[in-house]
């Protein structure tokens, strides 16, 4: 199997990373399905919000 052709943009990579980690943390730290879903969604939102926030915070220093 050749998987050497995966090209993800910055946001796509961040989104995939945030989704996978949120799912893993949600399943490991919560027991009931509804609590897992809430945790996954909240964690995913925080990952993205903080990531985009830090990105914009660095923008003035990028040049």
């Amino acid at each position, binding site marked *: 199997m050749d*998987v050497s052709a995966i090209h993800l943009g910055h946001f796509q990579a961040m989104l995939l990373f945030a989704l*996978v980690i949120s*799912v893993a943390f949600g399943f490991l730290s919560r027991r009931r399905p509804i609590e897992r879903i809430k945790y996954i969604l909240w964690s995913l939102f925080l990952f993205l919000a903080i990531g985009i926030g830090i990105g914009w915070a660095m923008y003035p220093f990028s040049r």
Partner: protein
Amino acid sequence: MPSENNPNQMMGEQPDNASPSAAPSSAPVETLANAPNEISNAEKSFGGKSFGERPAGRQTQALAIAVAAWLVPGLGHALLKMWGRAVASFLTVAVLVVVGAGMRGNIFTSGGSDAFDTLGYIADLGAGCFYFLARSLERVGADVSHANGDYGTRFLATAGILNLLAALHAFEAARGHKA
């Protein structure tokens, strides 16, 4: 109140599909909350009980589950009949490794030249059998001259660390700690 003679209850093993509302009066939540007391009671009254109920036996069993969880992501939770966590651990580690290798991330080897290489090797090795899968998938070698390869390196390291976390979780669950 759960029976002391039930090793599953004393180990705090809970299938993921256990629902407190669907359970009889000895609800799983109540069992988990009382698990430490039950374990200490079992340790006090130890003698003539089966292997799994002995503190040393339980510790050995928990270590075996942790090693299994490290070698094959999700296997530790599967042995504890925590199916949801087993599937989630396996899939998340698998996705991170396949995508990380596909993005041509750096897979560290034991012959690292500095401390960062060694740390990277330890992190990568945390993925267990997926470490070797990643090496077989990445035939053309790493390319960290672009952001894609750099992200791939992080994906691979995260897969290993995540698997170590899941193995630790399975170890704690096997010891009877609330998980």
